[in-house]
């Protein structure tokens, strides 16, 4: 029927396509890549983050997110909300200013750019005159004061960006006002900071790089007071009562200046302090002091660490009375702000929000011990490098609740306070179903995320390392600081890119949502079978070693050794607990994994072969070695070599970080050396241009390395031997374009526990083009993909048509091919690489519902190519339907980490090892209409 429609009604098909397929980029999950600026509006309760790629993102209550993108591809260096307005101003590093607003539109708000401005100086002036270094959004909401590199302050009226030339404060005006005795009237340098007097809006303090601060009256246009600091200025803060100004300096000191009439001038430099003094310290880049109703004020500052010993730490110090803590972050601090309680947001400080390069950390300042508040969004997916991901949609409520309960038990150390940033209202309806995203990490953890709604919420973390003996001391960096340590460090944040044993890394995950069985496979050939348990339990993990080489001679594994399993009983916390470990030998990376919970079988593959394990009887069913005898690389385990390179790199980075401080001392001596190195680098670059990149054109051959690497495993109940009897089967596809099919004989259900499961080889297909096989799908008599295990048993899928003949669709990197079953002969194919040069990277089966009618839908293959395009290929006729550009082709790891959901969403981690943004591309209209 379909065929008829396709040929007879070409136009109808086109219309149908429009109804079925619709591509939408919906949201980006996780933490923005390379944040560069932070802003906060207490009145709106919105947090703004600017990124180095020119994006601006606003976050409020969980689910409230706005995103804007500057046309210029320049980094956002500053974000300022106009006080008490809905506008915000961004400064880009191309010196352009942009005005954004939130505009209501049909009941929802959207972030819009409403103006842009570039400061123009007098004709002939050098560009430095107008290069903006400091921005002050005046409390009137109408003025913007722009301090420049030339030392001038320009006044601009907003939102129209009208320059008020007559109100500009020129450097000449300032220098004329400086008392003659100020350090020989040296150059004042650029405007470093601009701060408004909190009690008198007409007064601002202008801080110059050299250290001089001038309190200026905007109305009277004269200098009120001069604060002659001697150190390079980093930041200023005007206390709330207007009586003092705090200045922080590049030598790690801060000063408290009294603001008052000229008669009190002798009291000037009231208090100067280098908090981590004696030895040279790094600059304090930002200082904040906030009063409390009763008791001492909060003093918070960023940096100021002793240069030699702790110069590489990223710290924010919080001092409140006798409590003094240096919060130690794992990545560079971009900026921070404090949220204050009370209806006018003028009360006691309630929370400290810190934006560091890799995460946002919020600290509850009102609870004893200043615990961290768990972030409902902006969670770094990549706290440890993401090594794989797995998506499961429509989770049954029971399993969902069990996961949540286990997760709650883990989060006891978090603050009980609610999330403090509650701006906006999430208008999105409740998600129609519960979706789970599982991410596997390099440190051996599996994180469970609630992926049903717009934002990705952490639910539960599974640690697989507990089952093994590892070199890493679990208390290594979790140690609370020793008594009396100075500065009083406290580690905060969960971002830890360093894994101490790369063998723990998770490579493949498969969760059966109906049975709750979870299979997790890792870098050292370990496959853990887990099941949920609501209570903590102590038990031993049974280990089965499976030899994938099967006595092949002459092989020597030179890679990593297997992990040592704890033989004594281990206490496992509530949640998923391992019950069986299958250990592949040689312990190479597990490259493919498939779980069939109905048959209680798990299939696994490495670069050496694949095997089938019966986890009910704890018995290995069979092993097939796929190794090509000439493949030396696979034998010796180069993957592990790569890992060890990574490890040594990591170590050397750590060394560099440590030695950087000492290097700086010899800076002067090294100047010549650096020059020399630069010259050499230029020479190398020139050479590279002479010898451009070239690519070898060669047919794939059976002698290529890693042809035996198992890429995909698939269970299917289909016709393998004859067209009347269907049997369970296991399909495997290798890197060398080979497909193996095994017929599985399962004992009758009543004998399932004692009779052995057997399997025998049935088919072997060698694709002539030898491209890696990425996906295998069996289609039933209607041409629909077979349902997942237990789906039919739970009445969630139509049982497959077993009357008409089945087909198997093999997706390789280069083409899609449909073969008939049980006699394998090619029926149809679609070439991709030969036609447009792109290769399939990821493939998934998805259901596309029509946007017009409820009752029509089609299954299709969703394909992501190495060019970052998403294609939809129809089944069973393998015809190209639609394609959309989705990910930049340079974003290799983003492409590699893509997962598709059954409802046609694509999810991928953009550079998961670095940023972990998971933009979710929505493919199906039905799904789109419902969200």
């Amino acid at each position, binding site marked *: 029927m379909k065929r008829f429609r396709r040929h007879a009604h070409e136009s109808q098909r086109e219309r149908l396509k429009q109804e079925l397929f619709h591509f939408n980029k919906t949201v980006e999950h996780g933490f923005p890549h390379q944040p560069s600026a932070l802003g906060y509006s207490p009145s709106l309760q919105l947090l703004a983050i600017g990124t180095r790629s020119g994006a601006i993102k606003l976050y409020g209550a969980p689910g409230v997110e706005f995103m804007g993108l500057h046309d210029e591809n320049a980094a956002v260096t500053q974000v300022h909300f106009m006080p008490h307005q809905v506008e915000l101003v961004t400064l880009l590093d191309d010196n352009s200013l942009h005005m954004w607003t939130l505009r209501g539109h049909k009941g929802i708000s959207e972030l819009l750019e409403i103006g842009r401005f570039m400061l123009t100086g007098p004709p002939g002036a050098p560009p430095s005159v107008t290069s903006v270094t400091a921005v002050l959004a005046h409390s009137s909401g109408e003025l913007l004061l722009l301090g420049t590199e030339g030392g001038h302050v320009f006044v601009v009226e907003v939102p129209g960006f009208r320059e008020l030339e007559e109100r500009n404060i020129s450097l000449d005006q300032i220098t004329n006002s400086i008392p003659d005795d100020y350090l020989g009237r040296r150059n004042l340098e650029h405007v470093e900071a601009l701060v408004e007097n909190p009690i008198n809006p007409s007064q601002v303090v202008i801080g110059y790089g050299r250290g001089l601060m001038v309190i200026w009256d905007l109305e009277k246009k004269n200098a009120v007071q001069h604060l002659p600091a001697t150190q390079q200025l980093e930041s200023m803060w005007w206390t709330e009562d207007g009586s003092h100004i705090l200045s922080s300096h590049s030598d790690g000191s801060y000063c408290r200046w009294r603001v008052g009439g000229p008669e009190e001038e002798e009291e000037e430099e009231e208090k100067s302090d280098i908090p981590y003094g004696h030895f040279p310290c790094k600059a304090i880049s930002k200082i904040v002091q906030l009063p409390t109703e009763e008791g001492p004020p909060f003093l918070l500052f960023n940096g100021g660490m002793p240069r030699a010993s702790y110069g590489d730490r990223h710290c924010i110090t919080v001092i409140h009375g006798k409590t003094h803590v240096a919060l130690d972050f794992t990545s560079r601090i971009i900026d921070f702000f404090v949220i204050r309680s009370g209806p006018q947001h003028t009360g006691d400080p309630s929370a400290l929000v810190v934006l560091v390069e890799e995460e946002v950390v919020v600290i509850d300042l009102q609870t004893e011990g200043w615990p961290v508040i768990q972030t409902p969004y902006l969670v770094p997916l990549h706290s440890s490098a993401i090594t794989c991901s797995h998506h499961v949609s429509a989770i049954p409520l029971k399993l969902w609740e069990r996961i949540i309960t286990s997760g709650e038990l883990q989060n006891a150390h978090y603050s009980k306070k609610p999330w403090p940033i509650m701006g906006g209202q999430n208008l999105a309806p409740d998600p129609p179903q519960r979706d789970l995203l599982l991410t596997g990490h390099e440190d051996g953890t599996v994180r469970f995320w609630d992926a049903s709604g717009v934002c990705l919420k952490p639910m539960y973390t599974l640690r697989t390392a507990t089952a093994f003996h590892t070199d890493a001391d679990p208390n290594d960096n979790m140690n609370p600081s020793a008594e009396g340590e100075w500065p009083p460090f406290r580690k905060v944040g969960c971002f830890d890119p360093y894994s101490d044993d790369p063998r723990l890394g998770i490579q493949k995950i498969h969760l059966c949502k109906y049975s709750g069985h979870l299979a997790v496979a890792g870098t050292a050939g370990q496959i853990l079978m887990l099941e949920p348990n609501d209570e903590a339990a102590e038990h031993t993990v049974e280990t089965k070693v499976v030899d994938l080489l099967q006595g092949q001679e002459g092989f020597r594994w030179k890679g990593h050794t297997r992990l040592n399993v704890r033989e004594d009983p281990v206490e496992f916390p509530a949640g998923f607990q391992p019950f069986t470990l299958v250990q592949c030998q040689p312990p190479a990376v597990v490259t493919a994994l498939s779980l069939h919970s109905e048959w209680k079988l798990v299939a696994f593959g490495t670069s050496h072969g694949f095997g089938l394990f019966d986890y009910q009887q704890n018995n290995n069913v069979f092993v097939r070695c796929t190794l090509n005898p000439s493949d030396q690389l696979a034998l010796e385990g180069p993957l592990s070599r790569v890992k060890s390179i990574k490890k040594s790199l990591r170590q050397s980075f750590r060394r560099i970080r440590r030695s950087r401080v000492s290097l700086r001392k010899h800076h002067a001596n090294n100047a010549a050396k650096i020059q020399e190195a630069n010259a050499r680098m230029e020479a190398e670059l020139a050479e590279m241009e002479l010898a*451009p*990149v*070239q*690519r*070898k*054109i*060669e*047919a*794939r*051959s059976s002698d290529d390395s890693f042809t035996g690497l198992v890429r995909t495993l698939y269970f299917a109940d289909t016709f393998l*031997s004859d067209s009347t009897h269907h049997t369970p089967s296991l399909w495997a596809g290798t890197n060398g374009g080979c497909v193996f099919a095994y*017929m599985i004989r399962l004992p009758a259900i009543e004998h399932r526990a004692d009779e052995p499961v057997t399997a*025998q*080889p*049935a*088919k*072997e*297909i*060698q*694709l*002539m*083009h030898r*491209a890696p096989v990425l996906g295998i799908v069996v289609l039933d008599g209607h041409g629909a993909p077979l349902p997942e295990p237990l789906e039919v048993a739970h009445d969630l899928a139509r049982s497959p048509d077993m009357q008409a003949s089945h087909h198997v669709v093999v997706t390789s990197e*280069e*083409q899609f*091919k449909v073969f008939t079953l049980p*006699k*394998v*002969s*090619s029926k149809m*194919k679609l*070439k991709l*690489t*030969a*036609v*447009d*040069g*792109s*290769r399939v990277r990821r493939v998934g089966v998805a259901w596309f519902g029509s946007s017009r009618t409820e009752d029509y839908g089609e299954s299709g293959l969703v394909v992501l190519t*190495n*060019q970052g395009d998403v294609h939809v290929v129809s089944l069973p006729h393998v015809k190209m339907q639609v394609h959309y550009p989705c990910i930049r*082709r340079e974003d290799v790891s983003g492409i590699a980490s893509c997962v598709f959901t059954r409802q046609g969403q694509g999810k991928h981690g953009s550079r998961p090892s670095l940023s972990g943004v998971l933009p979710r591309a929505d493919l199906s209209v039905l799904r789109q209409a419902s969200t």
Partner: protein
Amino acid sequence: MNKTHRVPSSRSLSAVEVKSKFGAEFRRFSLDRSKPGRFDEFYGLLQHVHHIPNVELLVAYADVHGDLLPINNDDNYHKAISTANPLLRLFLQRKEEADYAAFGTDSLTRKKNTVLSAVLLRPDANKKKPPVIISLPKDFRPVSSIIDVDILPETHRRVRLYKHGQEKPLGFYIRDGSSVRVTPQGLEKVPGIFISRLVPGGLAESTGLLAVNDEVLEVNGIEVAGKSLDQVTDMMIANSHNLIITVKPANQRNNVVRCGGGGGAASGSSGRSSDSGASYYGYSAHGAVASMPTHIIQNFSAGELESDEDEDLVIEAGGEAEAIRHAPSDYSIPSVPRYEPHLNLRSHFSSAYSINANGTLHGSGSSGSPNNINANSASPSPDRAKERRSLEEDGTVITL
């Protein structure tokens, strides 16, 4: 065996004396030089005289130079008859026991060397080995060809590389570069893909049709403009079993041939024969190219461009490996693709022959009847070719 000594007679001048050897047995008979008939008739005759009606034979003869040459089609049969002086010495072998190494120059005097290596060795112009081994025409196979010369601009060259099995690497590298294009806005520098290196001994180098710095314009009919180096690499690898690349040769001097050959397209179409091919190579500057015996100039239909030679190998449980293939095939080795162009080659040869034959016959002033014979002898062969081609077309529809 047959010891009757024949006295040369006036009649015997037009007759060819045939001495046929099969195993240890000899048969002698004669043929009319002017009416040699067709090869299949001759073949039947041989089976008849040796009383081996159902034995597949390999027929060879010793030519004037003492070379052992095969007779397996009308063309070389007629050649053998016409050159017999006066005795035609035939050597018959069972096909299954055939010793292909025996053929070639000085093959009758030369000691036989190992059979297998000789079979594998194909004429290779770059190797300056004096004895050129000539295998049976069925062992000839195209390694590369220039195609679509009539539709492409003279500055471009479309080259087809045939990758048979695993014998020789394709052997070239490509790189990014820039070329200058003429656009309505004037000259414009555009990015392009170029051949950067040829692997010594590789297919690309040994054909002589590709050279370093040739710009790659198309891969299997798809333009590479706008595609990245990696995309083009992947396209070429995906098409590696039947790679057709259109290049703009860096050395444009060789293109003079067609303009300078006189008559341009007209001469090209009339002379679509082995002769014109020879003249082409005669003009070309590459010495290596000139001596290449396996180049063919031919046109490919779109269907042939699409023709796909990847046949997946399926092993059923306990069974033998078989190639998935729907089109019936003459060749039993599944991994070796079909060489359809070879058929075209043969039809060209036969038509060329008929023209030449007509010319000589007219020159000798004989009656019209030989013309008919020639016409007959020539006609079946295109017919057969047509038959085969239609089969082949079916093949492209059904094959994978």
